[in-house]
């Protein structure tokens, strides 16, 4: 009998983290920046997996929370040199009163966590308390994403509109922006920390209630749990994490635009989580980093047909590995360990 039964999480997670740790040592700045963004996408995928993979709520508007966080910190950066030019073009000479708190970057950072969480809580409250479930929940979040993107584009005087906000620094929390390498490691550490937080959450009694809701909502209610409250809480936590991801993203990317807040990104996150394997956390990470890495290298090698190739991979995974790449691997390993 084998004594050392490795969990799939360690088998995949440890080498992955080691690799990510070494990235700044062996790759150039462009690639480090790219990998940093992929890690942030993994963070966003974790936030979606918490609501979709664990509580069974498919949010098609998760980029809204990501975008809220992103825009809040991006506006704060642009306010550092006085009233930004896109505002002046509309005759706004002073930073509007309701945006004044954003002139301070640490304050903006905290708001970038709180506001997405509050929006998630409110949206969750109104949708979930009125017992909207299943596909209707998804549809409402989808509309929310479309709406938010339109608002960002149309309120050009306050958001920079279609052009987005450019030339953003790397999170100058203490006056000076971080160097690329330092910021890369910050992103990595934050993501790992959130991963373990999310893992602890899903392992708690709370997490088990969420899974029960996913499995059989009515039955969970008959056990005495107020199901909608549980869903609202996890949606709020998820919104906060997505907001954090958004803030890290614009700081790494140096740019935020309407495409970072809408349906397209929301859909992509769903794909990452589905392909990695939902309800496993590590699956979300593997999916986000894997798909983005694959898309990127394929677009370099096959500039004409790379989208097609990525599409084929996705279709194959959905057809033959319904539990996702990591999810299927986990199941296979567990059944193997059980028989060993």
């Amino acid at each position, binding site marked *: 009998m084998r004594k050392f039964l490795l969990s799939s999480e360690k088998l995949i997670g440890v080498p992955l983290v080691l690799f990510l740790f070494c990235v700044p040592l062996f790759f150039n700045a462009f690639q480090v920046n790219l990998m940093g963004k992929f890690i942030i996408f993994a963070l966003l995928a974790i936030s979606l997996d918490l609501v979709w993979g664990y509580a069974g709520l498919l949010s098609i508007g998760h980029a809204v929370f990501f975008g809220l966080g992103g825009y809040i910190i991006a506006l704060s950066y642009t306010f550092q040199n006085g009233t930004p030019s896109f505002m002046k073009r509309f005759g706004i000479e002073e930073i509007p009163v309701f945006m004044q708190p954003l002139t301070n970057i640490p304050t903006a950072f905290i708001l970038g966590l709180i506001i997405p969480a509050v929006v998630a809580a409110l949206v969750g409250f109104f949708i979930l308390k009125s017992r909207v479930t299943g596909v209707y929940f998804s549809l409402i979040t989808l509309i929310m994403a479309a709406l938010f993107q339109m608002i960002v584009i149309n309120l050009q005087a306050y958001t920079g509109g279609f052009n987005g906000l450019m030339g953003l620094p790397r999170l100058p929390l203490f006056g000076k922006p971080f160097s690329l390498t330092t910021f890369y490691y910050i992103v990595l550490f934050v993501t790992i920390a959130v991963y373990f937080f999310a893992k602890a959450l899903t392992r708690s009694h709370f997490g088990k209630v969420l899974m029960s809701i996913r499995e059989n909502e009515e*039955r*969970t209610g008959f056990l005495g749990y107020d199901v909608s409250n549980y869903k609202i809480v996890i949606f709020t936590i998820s919104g906060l994490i997505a907001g954090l991801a958004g803030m890290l993203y614009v700081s790494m990317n140096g740019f935020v635009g309407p495409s970072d807040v809408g349906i397209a990104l929301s859909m992509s996150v769903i794909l990452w989580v589905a392909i990695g394997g939902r309800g496993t956390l590590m699956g979300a990470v593997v999916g986000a980093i894997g798909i983005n890495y694959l898309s990127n290298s394929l677009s370099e090698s096959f500039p004409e047909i790379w989208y097609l190739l990525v599409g084929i991979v996705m279709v194959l995974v959905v057809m033959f590995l319904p539990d996702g790449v990591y999810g299927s691997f986990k199941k296979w390993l567990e059944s193997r360990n059980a028989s060993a």
Partner: protein
Amino acid sequence: MPILKTENLSVEFNGFKALTDLNFTLEKDELRVILGPNGAGKTTFLDLISGKTKPTAGKIYFNGEDITSYGASQIAQRGVGRKFQGPNVFANLTVYENIEVSLKGYHRIAQSLFKKKDKAAMEKIHHILEQIGLSQKSQHLAYTLSHGEKQWLEMGMLLAQDPTLVILDEPTTGMTASETYKTGELIQTIFKGKSLIVVEHDMSFVRQIAKKVTVLHQGRHLAEGTLQEIENNAKVQEIYLKEDVHA
């Protein structure tokens, strides 16, 4: 004071009277079997007292408290536990987790987030697993269990929930004769000291457990008494012969 009391309980679905003016009383520690042909309103009655459906008229009192307007989770928190018709377990959770999540005392979100499971709670889970005979399979996912095992797991979830009133809707559907008998024994031993309402068709099972029986017919109260009285009741014989179903 009776543990459960309904007064003129009625419910209508689009004009169809599923239940009409039902007055029902259950004493503490009583085991009551509810019989009736299909469409008699048995499951509807259970839906009403467990908060799944709201009545159109009448009142429901649980331990003297008016629970008529309460939702399912509020009623469950007050100590009503229900087993549904057919297995209704959390398929992708392990047997252990199914019991764990049913455990009383973690309903509030703060409790579920921060309250640690002490040794007593762990021992309770293991004790329940032993009682329902699933200790060996505690780490198996619930969907891998056999039909009978799933039914027992549900009993275990009810035990963990530790309700004062237990409602069982056809607990032996789909079971073999020996599983049915074992279930009868299980119910009598593990739910000792609790009030029980059991809806069941299987007459051998009813004979095994029943003390007092209530018969419903077309949403109305038809008869009530010991099993012997019921079996000799002319009205009951008539509906069962006429409809030519069950028993």
